[in-house]
């Protein structure tokens, strides 16, 4: 009896803390969405959880007066993130396949090298990267933001770990006996077997690329090529200082698609995060 009371009390504490944390996670976004439909004056009067009726007006101000083109930014980000994802997935799986299926003299060295480079962040070589891209005339294009995705060490690492358990080498042998070329075996047999891992990685690569701010800021200079986060950074400038309603609206427009995608894929995403941690 006493034991069950103690457990009961402890459970009450756990649920209370969890509730507070969930509210803390959601509240800033809720205030943002509500404020997107309120007038500047009302926003300054205090927090409210009841939407206002200025959504249409704020929308008009944002589009006409502020010239803030959310659709354009999204399309730009979509191109960069989409191409990066496709390149990273295909070539990382190809690299992992090379490392898992074939034995060659430099196999172990190649894998060790990939692992060693895994945690060197791109930020530390950005200056040399920028001046090189500048000399090549590639600044203010999306190539420097997408092509490097072909060499994504963390994705290779993940794909290799998955392939070790998901791809029976007997299958590759069987395909060979049937006369399938090596490249064909990879495309037709190995790649489809990797689907679950590809799906998980696709979500993470896409969102990771979509959210990047540092490299695009350095490389992209004309505003019609700005990616979404670069556009968001503009919201701090003085021309927006006087109208918070449109700032919250613009932020809502940038956040809403991610929240929708997240809620739809949350199960896969959370499973993916858990998997990444155990990696073995």
């Amino acid at each position, binding site marked *: 009896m006493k034991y069950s009371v103690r*457990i009961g009390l*402890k*459970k009450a504490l756990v*649920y209370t803390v*969890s509730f507070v*944390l*969930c509210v803390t*996670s959601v509240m*800033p*976004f809720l*205030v943002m969405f509500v404020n997107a439909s309120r007038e500047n004056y009302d926003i300054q*009067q*205090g*927090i409210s959880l009841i939407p206002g009726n200025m959504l249409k007006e704020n929308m008009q101000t944002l589009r006409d007066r502020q010239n803030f083109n959310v659709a354009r930014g999204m399309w730009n980000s979509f191109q960069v993130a989409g191409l990066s994802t496709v390149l990273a997935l295909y*070539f*990382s799986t*190809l*690299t992992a396949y*090379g490392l898992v*299926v074939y*034995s*060659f003299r430099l*196999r172990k060295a190649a894998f060790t090298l*990939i*692992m060693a480079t*895994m*945690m*060197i*962040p*791109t*930020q*530390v*070589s950005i200056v*040399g*990267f920028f*001046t090189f891209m500048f000399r090549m005339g590639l600044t203010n294009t999306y190539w420097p933001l997408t092509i*490097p995705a072909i*060499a994504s060490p963390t994705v*290779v690492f993940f794909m290799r770990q998955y392939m*070790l358990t998901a791809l029976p*080498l007997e299958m590759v*042998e069987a395909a060979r006996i049937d006369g399938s070329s090596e490249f064909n075996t990879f495309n037709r047999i190995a790649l489809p077997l990797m689907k679950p891992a590809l799906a998980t990685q696709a979500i993470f690569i896409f*969102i990771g690329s979509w*959210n990047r701010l540092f490299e695009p800021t350095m490389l992209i200079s004309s505003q019609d090529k700005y990616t*979404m*986060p670069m556009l*968001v950074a503009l919201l*701090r400038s003085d021309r927006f200082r006087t109208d*918070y309603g449109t700032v*919250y609206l613009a932020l809502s427009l*940038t*956040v809403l698609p*991610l*929240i929708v995608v997240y809620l739809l894929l*949350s199960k896969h995403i*959370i499973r993916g*995060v*858990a998997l990444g*941690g155990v990696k*073995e």
Partner: protein
Amino acid sequence: MATGRKNKSVSYARYGYLFILPFFLVYIVFQAYPLINTFYLAFQKYMLTGAGKWVGPKFVGLDNFKNVLTKGYAIRALSNTSIMWIINFIPQIFLALLLAKWFTDTRMRIRGQGLIKVLVFMPNIITAASISVLFYSLMAYPQGPINSLLATLGVIDANIYANPGTAALVAVRFLEKGWYTRIAIAFINFWMWYGNTMIVLISGILGISPTLYEAAEIDGATSGQSFRKITIPLIKPIILYTLVTSLIGGMQMYDVPALMLQDGSPAKAMIQTNTMYIMELVYSGTKDYGRGAAVSILLFIVTAVLSLILFFILRDRDENMVKRRGQK
């Protein structure tokens, strides 16, 4: 099976090289060469003046390093970054561990875990730039929503224009007072990442064999004892992995502090990170690529040391896995 592999290696080895070739080509051109180029530039005087005139490259030895370390802000930036990372990470790992303990406790069987995980992880997936500008707006002075909330709660005077002499406390200048801004930045990072850390720790704890806990329970261990004596020692590698990845990521911290920095705010001296300093050197006005590269190299050295630690952790884990696979 071992002999099968050997036969293959004779005829198919070239495909191995062919398949890993694109990775290494792109890596060399887009990552290794830029890193070497950064090293080279760190020892050169190389800049683009505001008028569009190129100066250099001209070899200047260690001048750039001396400059950023003594006259410049490299040390300050490194200490700012470390301080903000520490105030974010210590509460983050403790909260994540506490929640992981609660949610895996079989005696409590907490329900609704799926929903809790979805909600507390959410900030991690949203664009850091959007989140920073959101908090930047929420913390506005004097009438931002957070100050309004503080006034409603009676923490600060409701009349935000009250004379500081008469009011108990006035609206807070979150974005101008160094420590407030630092704590705000650390809080945002904490808020964005503790859900991620929690999920990683939970999956680590769930990987521990339940028989260990059953045995402990039969021997009369409390859940606190089981946690200290079984869980913590067994998830130590995962905690270490979280620590090192967070530290390496933290050293590159850019989005949140850069967007929480108000133009001309005195808080800059206390929140400018290394990546922000690099951006300042090479992005506006006179673009000083030599000094920017020097700061990058300092950051690289710090990161490389941390990476090396992680590399050894991961390598040991991988070797264990290959061994186990061999036994099958």
